């Protein structure tokens, strides 16, 4: 999952990015509204964490422009403004959630997970597909009740495929959602991650959990 943080406070921005990367997200950051709008327009994010008071272009203006462009990316407003009017204004401007500073990082993570889950129309944090169970809360995967240890990048890839299991996801989508702008994605990186993931979750003698659609992309095998 790839997240964009638009926040002018350097310390907040950097630490949020560190914490979210630790949690397995690919994270891009922007220090002002103009860069934030550019990034969110040019890239496909799973979620945007957006401050309201920003230099250049304020968060509400960014949100309005995104929604006008038809961009339905979940947006979590992060701001020091805590009045009811501010919350109402933020939510009516198209925000999906609103978190007031100072906040608990665990709460932020929980809200991000909930927003992403809601965006993918999942009712629960535990997704069961056939013999495999993916726990979005604990970032854990099990097969037939046995935990499958995965590296953060492999888990992120599996989570993305599971959340989009109803369709084929392209290689570029995977690159966009799994890797942030700090990593220069190369085709063999995706192939390598896919190969590692298959080795970890597939069982000998059974069809792979990830189906390769030649020329199209990949799809999670729910059976």
């Amino acid at each position, binding site marked *: 999952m790839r997240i964009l943080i638009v926040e002018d406070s350097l310390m907040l921005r950097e630490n949020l990015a560190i914490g979210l990367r630790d949690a397995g997200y690919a994270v891009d950051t922007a220090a002002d509204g103009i860069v934030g709008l550019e990034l969110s327009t040019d890239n496909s994010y799973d979620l945007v964490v957006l401050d309201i008071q920003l*230099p250049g272009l304020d968060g509400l203006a960014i949100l309005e422009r995104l929604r006008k462009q038809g961009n339905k990316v979940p947006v979590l407003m992060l701001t020091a403004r805590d009045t009811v009017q501010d919350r109402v204004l933020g939510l009516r401007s198209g925000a999906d959630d609103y978190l007031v*500073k*100072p906040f608990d990082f665990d709460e932020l993570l929980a809200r991000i997970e909930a927003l992403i889950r809601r965006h993918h129309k999942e009712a629960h944090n535990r997704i069961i597909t056939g013999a495999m169970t993916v726990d979005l809360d604990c970032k854990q995967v099990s097969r037939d009740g046995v935990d499958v240890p995965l590296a953060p990048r492999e888990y992120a890839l599996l989570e993305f495929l599971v959340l989009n299991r109803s369709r084929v996801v392209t290689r570029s989508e995977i690159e966009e959602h799994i890797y942030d702008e700090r990593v220069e994605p190369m085709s063999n990186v995706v192939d390598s991650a896919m190969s590692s993931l298959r080795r970890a979750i597939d069982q000998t003698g059974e069809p792979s959990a990830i189906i390769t659609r030649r020329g199209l992309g990949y799809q999670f095998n729910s059976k």
Partner: protein
Amino acid sequence: MNSLRAKLVLRMVLVVSLFGLAVSGVFHVVTRSLLLSDFEHELETEMTFVTGLTKVFPDGDVYVDLDSEVVTEYGLEANRLYQVWDADLAEVLDRSVWLEQTSQFVALADEGEGPTIVVSRFDTVLPDGRPARAHLKYIDAQWGWFDSEPDKDVNESVRATAVWLLVARDRSELNRSLNRLMWLTVAMAFLLPMLAAWAVRWTVKHSLKPLSAVTEEITSIRSTMPAHRLHETWPVEIRPLTQAFNALLERLNSAESRQRRFAAAAAHELRTPIAELRTVTDVALRGQAKHDRLTDALRQCNAVSHRMQETMNGLLELAKQQSHSNLTPNTSVNVTALVTELIEEQRGFMQKRSVNVEMSPLASIMIDSHEPSLRMILNTLVSNAVVHCPVGSNVLVTLANGPLRVIFDNDAPALSADDIEHLFDPFWRPATSTTPEDQCNEQPHFGLGLALAKDAAEQLGLELSAELKDARIRFEISSRILSGSVPDPITPEVDSP
């Protein structure tokens, strides 16, 4: 006596009572005089009338020749009397019917002192004890024969008969009237102050009712009604008070709003560092196995604590300035050199942002002022201009004297007219700033600089104002004449470079 009403009542009662008493006295005197005068006048008329009827006849007989109709008026218990004496007052020649019937005489005022009559008008007592007023006159008797026999030859001594005529009237009725008048006056003297006191008290009470109503309305104003104002339909005498009170409410409301804004801004301002602290520590604790990350988190927390301390210092400085307690004696300050020095201090940051500062003129302007405060004000304006102007833009600094003016003029495309109203509010920052925090790290600011500068300027007798025109912001600091607590007026002097 602290009661306005009591003072007013007492004074008005005194004035009205004294005036009433004076009026009563005058009324008494005038009415009494009129009654007496009328009485005397009637007696005089009667004297004239009776004089015309006092006749001497050829046989020397003298009597008052009254008509039968008139005689009845002098009859039994009549109020009118007359009595005629001979010229020597030795013998009574005629008298009223009632006197004759009761065989009584009216005594003269000077009875017993001889025949000389000196009192012509006097009070006396009638034989039956009634008080009376009498007029006594020495008259020539009318010739009793003259109408019927004008040519009759009568002895010369008879012709020259003279008599004393006394006319008297019962004055019981007059005395009763005078008594009534006296009692009426006395009653007025007692009642008038009481009536006046009641009337004045009633009037004052009703006149002061609007004051009570104003008091009630003021009392009913609660702290939850900041927009409430006294209405404008009070009597004209009270309107200045209500208007002054409304103006006071306006000032209090404004001060309260400012305090509320300040408290909200301070709370808002503290949210960011607290949010930073929590995020830094939360993230560090989640990855506490990584020693470097913990160290980095500690470093960041330390930086945040320094920034919070700066904020607190700024707040304390603001409070100190507002209490006017930090002024040291004035010194001579070269404003041009000071501005130049402050611009030089910003040189590195200006280069980083490609900002150019043009300053004119370069002639020295000397003023007598509080150097640290002036330095703080000018430093705020210089750093404000170079930090917030767009990258690559120009800042124009203009100095002028007589009176002193220092103007900072730079592009400010992100500011709106509404922003100008709040520029000097503590912690205020525009909704969209042109400079991200990364670029401001060398110039940390907490939204207190302009508020501090404004307060300091006021203390120095300077006026700090801001104007937005054509997307350019213009800060101007100028000397002005202030009254009251200004330490020393600033006197610009110009030295040749």
